[in-house]
C-alpha cells in the first residue's frame, strides 16, 4: 500500500547514533558502513566500537551485546559523542544495556520482532518495555525488521539463518533514508565483498534497499534529517583507528629511515591489533616476533636494536609493568627503542577492554634507579600515526627508549584521516658509526647521543650491557664519580630532547581566567567541551600535551598566564601531580575513572562550575 507521504526535512548540525545488537547481529559492520557513507557525503565524524568483554557470549544476553557509536556533523567533530541521539536496537538486551546512555527524549529504533518472550527473559526484562510504558519520554519507533527482512528475502534461496543475517542491512538502509545518505557506497562494498557469491550479494543489496524504501513509504517516519557537509581540508581521506595508525606510523618510519622494522610483542588487549596489522606487512621486510611473553617481546627488540633494526615493542598496562626492568636496560645501553603502551583500565588485569590514562607516572618514573626516557602521548586516533613517526625519530636521534602512550579509546576509535603523501613526510636520518678511528661506545655527539654501530661492522667489535658504563669508553665502571656523572648525563640527554619539542600551543586567549590542559586521548572530549562552553559565551583556553617528557619548554609559562588551570584526566590526577611538582602551581583536577572516555558534558559542567556558572563573556 504505497501512498505519498508528507515528510519534514530537518537540518541538524550534528548527530550521535548508536547501533546495538547481539554479537552475531553484525553491528560493527553496520556501524562502519554508516561511517564510510557518512564520510563520503562530507560530514566530519568520529566513531567508537563497544565490544562485549566476552568473546562470544550466549545470544540474546546482555553481556553479549555489541555496539557501535558514531558522531557526525557539519562542523568539526572530535569525539564519538556522549549520549546518542538515536539508538538502534536489534534485540531487548541491546535496549537494556544501552538505554541508560540514551539522551533524554532520544529516539529508539527497535527491531520489534525480537521483543519476544525468550529474548525479553534473556535480557532480564519482566515485561516488554515497548509495551509497558517504561519508555515514556523517548521517541520509540518500532519496526518489525526481522519479519520485513524475511519477507523480502523469502525467495532469495538463502537459508533462514542466512536470511536473518541480512537484517542489519535492512536497518542500515532505513538509517540511510532517515539521514539522507546514498546507498551506493554500501552497494559497492557489497558487490566487492560478495563478488563471487551472487546469492549473498543480491540478498544483502535487497535488504539494504528494502530498509531504505521502508523509510520512504511507511507512515512511521515523518521526519528526515539533513546534515550538511563539513568544511574539511582538501584531500584523500580514509577512516583510521588508533591501532592501525600506530602500525602505519612505524611502517612509514621504517621506510623513511631505511631501517628494517622489528616488532617484539606479546598479544594483549587492546594492543594486539598493532602486532596484527604489522604482521601483514611482510612485503616491507617487517619482522613481527610474537614472543613467549612481554619480557621476551622487549628484550628481543633490544637485541634487534643492537643489531641495527628500528626496534619497537607494544603492549598494554600489565605488559608495560613486565617490561619495566628491560626498559632500564635500554636506558643503560642507550639503544633506540620505542615502547608503545595502549593504556587500559587498571590496576592489575583491571578492565582489559576499557580505556584509562593511569599509566603516565609509571611511564615517567616506574623503573628502578634513575632511568629517564622520552614519553609521548597521542591525542587522537590519527595522531597515533604522527606520534609513531616522532617516537621513532627521537629514539634514533637520541639513542634512547621512547614510551609512546595511547589508550583503549584511541586504539579502537576511528576518525577520518587525510592520507599523507609519503614524500611529504620528512626523512628520518640515521647514521651508523662505521669508522674505526676514534670509536668508543659511549662517546657523545652534540645531542649527547652515543654512536650506533651495526653488529657485523668489521673492526668495531665492542661490548655493552646493563652495568654502569665508564663515560666515553663504555667499560664496566664502579667508580663513584663516574656513576654520578653518568646518572646526570643520561638525565641531561633526555632533558635536551626539548630542542625537538614544539612549544605548547594555546587555543583561545593566550592568557586569562581558565586554561584547560589535558594530555593523550582526552583531546577530543576536551576540545568539544571547550567549543561548547565557548558557544555558551564562556571564555576558556585550551592546551594539550603530546610530549610528556620532556615537557615543552614554555609549559610553565603557559600555565602561569592563567588564573586557574583545570586538568581533566581519566585517572586520579597523574598529570596534575607531575605539573605541580614541576611548576609549583595549584591546579584544579577533574578525575572520572569509569573505563570510558570522558563525557563532553562532564568536562563542560566542570568548566562552567569553575567559571562560576556565568558566562565570562567574549
Amino acid at each position: 500500500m504505497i501512498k505519498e507521504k508528507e515528510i519534514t526535512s530537518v537540518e541538524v548540525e550534528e548527530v550521535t547514533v548508536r547501533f546495538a545488537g547481539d554479537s552475531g547481529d553484525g553491528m560493527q559492520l553496520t556501524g562502519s558502513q554508516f561511517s564510510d557513507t557518512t564520510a563520503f557525503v562530507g560530514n566530519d565524524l568520529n566513531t567508537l566500537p563497544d565490544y562485549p568483554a566476552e568473546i562470544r557470549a550466549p545470544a540474546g544476553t546482555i553481556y553479549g551485546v555489541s555496539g557501535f557509536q558514531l558522531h557526525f556533523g557539519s562542523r568539526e567533530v572530535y569525539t564519538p559523542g556522549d549520549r546518542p541521539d538515536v539508538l538502534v536496537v536489534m534485540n531487548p538486551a541491546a535496549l537494556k544495556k544501552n538505554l541508560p546512555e540514551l539522551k533524554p527524549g532520544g529516539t529508539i529504533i527497535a527491531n520489534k520482532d525480537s521483543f519476544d518472550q525468550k529474548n525479553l527473559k534473556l535480557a532480564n526484562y519482566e515485561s516488554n518495555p515497548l509495551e509497558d510504558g517504561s519508555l515514556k519520554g523517548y521517541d520509540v519507533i518500532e519496526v518489525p525488521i526481522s519479519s520485513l527482512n524475511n519477507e523480502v528475502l523469502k525467495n532469495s534461496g538463502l537459508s533462514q539463518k542466512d536470511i536473518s543475517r541480512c537484517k542489519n542491512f535492512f536497518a542500515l538502509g532505513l538509517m540511510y533514508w532517515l539521514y539522507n545518505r546514498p546507498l551506493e557506497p554500501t552497494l559497492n562494498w557489497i558487490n566487492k565483498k560478495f563478488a563471487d557469491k551472487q546469492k549473498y550479494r543480491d540478498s544483502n543489496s535487497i535488504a539494504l534497499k528494502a530498509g531504505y524504501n521502508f523509510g520512504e513509504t511507511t507512515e512511521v517516519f515523518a521526519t528526515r534529517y539533513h546534515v550538511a557537509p563539513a568544511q574539511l581540508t582538501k584531500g584523500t581521506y580514509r577512516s583510521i583507528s588508533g591501532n592501525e595508525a600506530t602500525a602505519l606510523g612505524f611502517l612509514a618510519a621504517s621506510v623513511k629511515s631505511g631501517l628494517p622494522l622489528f616488532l617484539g610483542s606479546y598479544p594483549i588487549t587492546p594492543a594486539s591489533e598493532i602486532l596484527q596489522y604489522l604482521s601483514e606487512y611482510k612485503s616491507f621486510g617487517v619482522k613481527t616476533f610474537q614472543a613467549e611473553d612481554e619480557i621476551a617481546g622487549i628484550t628481543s627488540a633490544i637485541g634487534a636494536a643492537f643489531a641495527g633494526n628500528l626496534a619497537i615493542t607494544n603492549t598494554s598496562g600489565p605488559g608495560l609493568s613486565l617490561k619495566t626492568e628491560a626498559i632500564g636496560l635500554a636506558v643503560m645501553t642507550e639503544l633506540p627503542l620505542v615502547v608503545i603502551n595502549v593504556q587500559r583500565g587498571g590496576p592489575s588485569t583491571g578492565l582489559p577492554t576499557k580505556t584509562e590514562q593511569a599509566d603516565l607516572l609509571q611511564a615517567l618514573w616506574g623503573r628502578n634507579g634513575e632511568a629517564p626516557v622520552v614519553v609521548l602521548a597521542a591525542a587522537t586516533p590519527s595522531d597515533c600515526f604522527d606520534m609513531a613517526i616522532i617516537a621513532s625519530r627521537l629514539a634514533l636521534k637520541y639513542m634512547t627508549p621512547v614510551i609512546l602512550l595511547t589508550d583503549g579509546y584511541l586504539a579502537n576509535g576511528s576518525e577520518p584521516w587525510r592520507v599523507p603523501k609519503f614524500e611529504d613526510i620528512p626523512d628520518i636520518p640515521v647514521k651508523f658509526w662505521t669508522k674505526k678511528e676514534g670509536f668508543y661506545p659511549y662517546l657523545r655527539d652534540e645531542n649527547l647521543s652515543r654512536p650506533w654501530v651495526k653488529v657485523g661492522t668489521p673492526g668495531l667489535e665492542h661490548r655493552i650491557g646493563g652495568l654502569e658504563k665508564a663515560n666515553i669508553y663504555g667499560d664496566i665502571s664502579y667508580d663513584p664519580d663516574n656513576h654520578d656523572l653518568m646518572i646526570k648525563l643520561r638525565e641531561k640527554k633526555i632533558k635536551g630532547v626539548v630542542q625537538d619539542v614544539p612549544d605548547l600551543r594555546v587555543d583561545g586567549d593566550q592568557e586569562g581566567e581558565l586554561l584547560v590542559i589535558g594530555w593523550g586521548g582526552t583531546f577530543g572530549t576536551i576540545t568539544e567541551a571547550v567549543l561548547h562552553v565557548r558557544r555558551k559565551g564562556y571564555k576558556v583556553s585550551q592546551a594539550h600535551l603530546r610530549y610528556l617528557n620532556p615537557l615543552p619548554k614554555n609549559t610553565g609559562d603557559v600555565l602561569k598566564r592563567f588564573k586557574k588551570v583545570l586538568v581533566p584526566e581519566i585517572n586520579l590526577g597523574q598529570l596534575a601531580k607531575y605539573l605541580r611538582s614541576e611548576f609549583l602551581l595549584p591546579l584544579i583536577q577533574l578525575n572520572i575513572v569509569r573505563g570510558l572516555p570522558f563525557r563532553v558534558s562532564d568536562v563542560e559542567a566542570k568548566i562552567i562550575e569553575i567559571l562560576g556558572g556565568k558566562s565570562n563573556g567574549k
Partner: protein
Amino acid sequence: MANDKELIQEKPEVKYTAKDFSSGQDVRWCPGCGDYSVLAMVQRSFPDMIGIKKEKVVFVSGIGCSSRFPYYMDTYGFHGIHGRAPAIATGIKIANPDLSVWVAAGDGDLLSIGGNHFIHACRKNVDLKILLFNNQIYGLTKGQYSPTSAKGLKTKTTPFGSVDYPFNACSLAIGSNATLVARTLDSDPKHLQQMILRAAEHKGLALIEIYQNCVIYNDGVFDLFKNKETKDDHTIVLEHNKPMIFGKNKDRGIIIKNSKPLIINLNRVENSINDVWVHDEFDPSPARAMILAHMTDSHDFPTPIGVFQQIKKETYDEGIEAQIDSIIKAKGKGDIQKVLSSGYTWEVN
C-alpha cells in the same frame, strides 16, 4: 671498550688466532674457576671455524659470573639482564640472520629465571649456540643453590639441605625439542673444544652443557667425572656409531632392554661387545637422548659426555626469511603509499 687493534679488512679468508678473540680486558673470575678454561677453548676454537668472520660473531649473556663471558671476547657482545639472554639473542638473530649468535649463561641464568626463554628458543629452533656453564650453584650472588643443585645440598639459602629435585638440563632441552644437545667438562679442553665446534657447525639451537667447577661455592661437585681414578667409571664418552663402552678397562657396556639402560660386564663370557648399544647422534627419536640424559639420575650409571642428539630441520630465522622472501616474490615489495591509502577512501574537494 672499543678494541684498538688493526681493522680487519673484509677478506674472504681471514686467518685468526685465539688472541684475535681476546678483548684484552682483565678477566675477573676467581683463580681456579672453570670459566677460564671455557674462555680459553672458545677463543681457541673460533679460528678453526671455517668461514666465520669475527665481526659477525655476537656473544650474549645474562647476569652471573659466567655471564661476564662476552666482555672477554673481542667480538660483538651484549651483557643483558638476568635470564633474558636467549630472548635478546633471538632478537639479534632474527634482525640479522647473518650473525653467528652465541649465548653464555649460568645454570641460574638459563634454567632458573631464564627457563622460559630457553625452552622457547629450543622449541623454535632459533639458530643460537648456547653454552651452559653449569656449576650447580649461584656464583655471582655468593653461593645460593640453583635449579641444578643436587637435592640435599647445603648452601647459603639451604642451610639444612635443599629439598628441591634438580633439573636435568639435557632432559629439559630434549623435552623442548632442541636440535643439538651435548655435554662436556671444563676440565677436558679437547672435548670441550670439539663440542664448541659442533655447536658452531650446527644450524639450529645447540645446547652445550658444560660441567663447570665453582671453586668457591661448590668446589668438587664434578670430581667423580674428572678425577683420574673415578672418571673412567663414572663417565661414558659418546661417539657416533661406536658401541657405548666405558670403565678403566673399557670393559663395561650399556645395553638397552625395554627402553631402559643396563650395564653389562664385557669380561663375562655371556656378554659380547656386539650386544652393546651403538650410539647414533642423528637418531631422530627423543627416546635415545632421553635415556642418555637420565643416566645421570643415579651414580649407578656413567654420565654421558658428548653429543646426545643432533637433528636437522629448518631454523626459526630461516623460516622467517623464507616467508618474507616468498611473499615479496609473489606480491612484490611493499608500496608504502598504497598501504597508507588502502581501505575505503573518499575525496574532499
